[in-house]
C-alpha cells in the first residue's frame, strides 16, 4: 500500500473526484470553478494534468463520468444552480483548455445542484440530479449522439409530506445526495439523502414510470451528507452506505422480499468523531471508504463470516500528517 501525493493546482477546496470507467484518468472539481482532468503517464509514472478549464460560475460540487459507450462525457453540477455536460474534443490539444466542450447546460433547478449521478448504462444516457429545492430531476439524452439535447423526464419532490405544498425552502438548511441502484434486475431505483428529514429514502420507478417513495433508511440524527449504493456483483442482497453530519457512517443491508426490501442496519461506525462528508464503495462493492472533517479517509471491509466476524471492520486509514506528507496506517 502506497500513497502518492499530487499537487492538485486548484485554488480552493476540491469537492469531488471521479475516475473514468477504465481507471486511466480522473477529473477533479473545486470551488475555484474549474474542472481538471488528470491522466496517468507511463513515462513519468505520475498523474499529469491534461486539461483544466473554468466550468462554472461558482463552487463545483460534484462531477461524474458517463459510461464510455456514450463517448467521453463529463457532467458537473454547481452552486450556480446549473448542470453542465462536457464532451471531449479529441482533435484539440491537451492543456489547451478547449479539449472539453460544453454541450448542454441544464438550468431547471431552483437551488444549487447538490448531487448528480449517471444512471447505470443499461438505462440509457440518463442523469439524476438533486438540488437544494428538494426536487429530484431526471434528464435523459434521448438521442445519444446529440448531447446538446436533454429532456427533463421526471421531477419528484423528495419530501413526501411536503410535496403538495412546496415549502419556501431555505437553501442553506438542506443538503441532498443521491445514488442509483446498480442492479438491472429490479425496477430503476435511487436512494436519496433527504435533507432536513434526516434520513435517506429509496425511490422506485413503478410500472407506470412514476417515481414513488419507498423504504426509509432511518436512524440518522442529522443531515445525510452522502449516500452510496454498493455495486451488487450478483450478491443476494444490496448494501447502501450513508455519511452523516451526526459523525457516523452507516451501512444498510437490503434483502428483497415480496413488496420491496427488508432494511437492516448492519454497521454504525463513529470512528471519524466529526462530520462525515463522503462514502464511496470500490468497484466490486467489497470495500467502503469514508472521509470526514477529521481529515482521514477510512476503509471498511465486511468481517469474514467463516471466521465468525460480524459487521464491518476498519482495514486502513489514509491520513494527512503534519510533518510527512501523506501516510497510511494499517
Amino acid at each position, binding site marked *: 500500500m502506497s500513497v*502518492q501525493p499530487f499537487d492538485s493546482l486548484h485554488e480552493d477546496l476540491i*469537492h469531488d*473526484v471521479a475516475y473514468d470507467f477504465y481507471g486511466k484518468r480522473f477529473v477533479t472539481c473545486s470551488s475555484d470553478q474549474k474542472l481538471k482532468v488528470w491522466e496517468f503517464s507511463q513515462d513519468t509514472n505520475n498523474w499529469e494534468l491534461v486539461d483544466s478549464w473554468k466550468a462554472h*460560475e461558482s463552487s463545483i460540487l460534484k462531477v461524474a463520468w458517463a459510461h464510455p459507450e456514450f463517448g467521453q462525457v463529463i457532467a458537473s453540477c454547481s452552486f450556480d444552480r446549473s448542470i453542465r455536460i462536457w464532451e471531449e474534443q479529441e482533435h484539440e490539444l491537451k492543456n489547451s483548455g478547449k479539449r472539453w466542450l460544453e454541450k448542454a447546460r441544464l438550468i431547471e433547478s431552483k437551488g444549487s445542484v447538490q448531487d448528480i449521478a449517471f444512471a447505470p448504462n443499461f438505462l440509457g444516457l440518463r442523469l439524476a440530479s438533486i438540488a437544494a429545492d428538494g426536487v429530484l430531476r431526471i434528464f435523459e439524452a434521448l438521442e445519444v449522439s446529440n448531447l446538446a439535447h436533454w429532456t427533463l423526464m421526471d421531477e419528484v419532490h423528495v419530501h413526501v409530506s411536503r410535496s403538495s405544498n412546496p415549502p419556501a425552502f431555505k437553501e*442553506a438548511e438542506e443538503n441532498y445526495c443521491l445514488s442509483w441502484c446498480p442492479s438491472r434486475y429490479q425496477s430503476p431505483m435511487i436512494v436519496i439523502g433527504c435533507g432536513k428529514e434526516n434520513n435517506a429514502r429509496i425511490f422506485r420507478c413503478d410500472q407506470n414510470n412514476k417515481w414513488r417513495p419507498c423504504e426509509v433508511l432511518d436512524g440518522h440524527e442529522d443531515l445525510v451528507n452522502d449516500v452510496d449504493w454498493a455495486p451488487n456483483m*450478483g450478491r443476494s442482497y444490496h448494501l447502501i452506505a450513508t455519511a452523516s453530519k451526526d459523525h457516523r457512517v452507516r451501512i444498510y443491508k437490503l434483502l428483497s422480499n415480496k413488496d420491496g426490501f427488508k432494511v437492516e442496519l448492519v454497521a454504525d461506525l463513529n470512528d471519524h468523531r466529526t462530520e462525515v462528508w*463522503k462514502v464511496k464503495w470500490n468497484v466490486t462493492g467489497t470495500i467502503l471508504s469514508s*472521509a470526514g472533517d477529521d481529515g482521514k479517509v477510512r476503509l471498511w471491509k465486511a468481517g469474514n463470516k467463516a471466521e465468525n466476524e460480524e459487521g464491518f471492520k476498519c482495514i486502513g486509514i489514509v491520513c494527512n500528517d503534519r510533518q510527512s506528507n501523506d501516510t497510511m496506517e494499517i
Partner: protein
Amino acid sequence: MSDHLKNFFDPRPSTPPWSNFSTTNPHFTIAANHTWNDTSHSSSKENQILEKASAIFVIKHNLNSSLTALSASPDHNHIVVAGREVLKVLNVSEREITEEFNLKNRSFNKVSNDVKWGNISTKNKIATAATNGTIVIWDIGNGRTKIDRKIDEHSRAVNRICFNPTNGSMLLSASQDCTMKLWDLRESDPAKFTFEGKCENVRDVQFNSINQNEFAAAFENGAIQKWDIRKPSIHERKLNAHIGPVLAVDWHSDGRTIASGGRDKFIKIWDMNSDSRNPRDIIGSMTSIARVQWRPNHPNEIASCALLSDNRIFIWNIRRPFIASYYFAEHEDVPTGFLWHDSDVLWSCSKDKIFIQQHMSDSYRPLDLLSKCSIGWSVYDKIAFSIEKPNDSIAEDQQVSRSIPPSGNQFRIMQKRISPNIIEPRNELQQKTGIASLPTFDHKAFSYLAENYIISSRDIWSVCEHNAKIAWDVQRFRTAQTWKIIQLLYGILEPVDKNTTYNDKEGTNSLSKDSTSTNPDKSSGEIKESDSIKDLNTLTEKHDEALDDDVESVDDNEYDEEEEFGQVEDRIKDSGVQQRRTTIKMKSHTVQATYNSTLCQNWDKESIMSQLLDYYAEQGDVQMCVTLMLVLGDRIKISQERVEQWFFSYIELLHRFQLWCAATYIISSCRIPSVEMMNQQSTTIYTTCNNCFRPILNSRCRYWICDKCRKMLNPCSICHNTVKGLYTWCQGCSHGGHLAHMKEWFSVNDECPTGCGHNCSGRI
C-alpha cells in the same frame, strides 16, 4: 443529545428556545409569516413580517411597492426607500421598523432610480434621481415635506447620485446621457461642472470618503474612471475594468482602493495608487453584480447583490475569492439596494417590496455546506482523495458549546460568540490531495486469469486441471484448490467425462506434473496449502491409473460403493468448507485404498456448489463465479437472474480492464440470451469490398460475398484465407487481414501487402 439540545446547537433551530420572547414584546411573534398590524400607526396598511427563528435580528417591512433604492440619514435612525410608487421615510431601530411619512405625491410620478440622504448642511434633504433625468431635492426638515428643488439638466435617465461625504451641499450625478454633473446646492445655479465621460453611459459615481475632491465613475463600456473635481476637463485615471457594463463602484475606507462590479459577474478590486492595469483581486460571482459595498470594520470583506435571478446578498472575503464567506437569503426577489448600518447589521430593499434589517448571525456560511474532502475509486483499487487537515479550533468550539445549557439567554450569548467578527485568514489551502494504491485487488492476476482460464465445459477434468494451474501461477492457492475440488466433484463421475478423461489422460497428467514442479516461490506460509495440492495431484494421478486399469468395471461396482460410503456422505453435508476439504482428502485416501472413483457421486453437490458460489460472490469474485458457471454449464442449478448478474458484472469488469477479447469470448460462450445479445447490439461497422470498393450492406449475401463483384469479401491479404477472429483493415484501401499478419507486414513495410500501391502505414 436530546431534541431540545439538538435544536439549540442548530444555527437555525426550528423551534427557538427563546420563544418566550414573544410574550415580552407584542411586536415579535414566532410563527412564520405571521402578519402583525401596527395598531399604533393606524394609517399604515403595511405589514411587518417577522421570520421564524430569527426574530431577534431579521425584521421585514412590506412597503407594497417594488423598491429600487435606499439611503440612510446621517445618524442612521431613518431610512428612505424609493420605489415605483413609494418614497417613504422609515424609522428604524434595533427592534422595529415604523413608517415616518410618505414623500410620494402627485407632482412626481417617475420611477426613482436612486435616492440619497444628504449630510451636514443637507442632513434634512433627500435627493432622488428619476428615469426621465429629473433630480428632485426634498426638504424634510421641521416636519415639512416639500420639494426644495427640481433639476432638469440631464437629457436622459440619471442612474446614480451621490452627496459629497464631507460637504453635503455637493451633489454628483451619473446619467445615461454620458455625463456626470456636480451641483452646489447652496446656489440655485445650474451644474457647476459637467464631466464628460467620452460618450459612455455612466452607471455609478461615488466620492472618495478620504479625499473629498476625488470620485470614481462606472461606465457601460466596461471602464472605470477616477476624477478630480478640480480638473473637470479630463479624468485622472481610466481602467478597462470589465467586459460589458460596470454597474457599481465602491471606495474602500482606505481611500485608495476601489471595488467594481460588472455584468461580467466579477467583482474586481483596484489599487488606484498603483500603476498596474490589473486588478489587485478578483472575485468570481455566479451572477452579474448590480451593487457592491465594503463591510465596515472588515477591510477584506465586501457585500454584493445580483442584477438578476439571484435573491441573495453575498459577503465575500477578498482572500477567499471563490467561496462567499456569508450570504443572506431573506428576499424573495432580486435585491435592488443595500446598506451597512454597522459591521453586523445590513439593510436591504428588493423588488419583492420588502425592506429588511438583518444581522450577520442570520447569514449562512456557504463553507459550512461544502464538503472539505472527496474520494474517488478506480477499478484498480486506487483511491484519489482530497482531505483537509482537521481544524483543532473547531473541536474546541464544540467542547465549549456542549457545556452551555440550552436556555434562551445563553443562546444569544453563543450566537454572539459564533457571530463571525473576525475572519480567520486563510491564504493557504489546508487541503491535501493524493492517490492511495490499495493491495486489495490484484488486477494483474485478474487479467492473467481472464486471459488464460479455459471456459469450455466439454472436458471438465482437464479444464479444471488447467484452471487450477493457472490460478496456482498467480498464487491464488485457494482458487486453485477450489478447481481441484470441482475436478473431483464433477470431473470423474459422469460416464461421458470418464471416457474423455481416459482419452486425455496424457495431457492431464503432464499438466498436473507441471503445476507441482513449477511451484512458484513457495512461501513458508503457503507450504501447507501447496502440500495439500500436491497431495491432491498425486491422488488424482492415482485415480487416473485406477481408471486406466479398470474403466470397464467401474459401472458394475458403482451400486455397492454408494452404499458403502453413505455415512461419509452425511458427514460431508453438515461440515463447513474447511472440514469439507479434509474430508475430501480423507475420502481420497479411501478412494486410493479401494481403487474406486465413484464414491463422490452422491455428494450433495448442489448445496456445496451453492455455498461455494455464495462465498465467491460475497468476495466480489465474479470471475470465479462466471468461470465456474461456464465450465460446469447446466450441471449447476442456480437462479438465472443471479447468473446473469455475475455475467454482466464480470463482462463490465473485463471491459474496464480493456480485456476486450476475453469479454467477447465470455459473451459468445454464454448461453443466456440477454448476455449473448450484447455482441449484436450497437455494433455497426461501415466498410467496403476490398475488390470493387462498393460499400458492404446487409443484403442477400449476408456480408460474405460482395453484391457487385460476387467475390468473397475481405480475405487476409497475406494468407488469402477468410479471417475468423480479429480482422484489421486499412480505411484507405479497404485491404486488411489477420491482425498478426498485418502487424508483421507493417513492422517492415509501409505499403499495402496487396500491391495496390496505397500507403497504409499510418492508418492501420
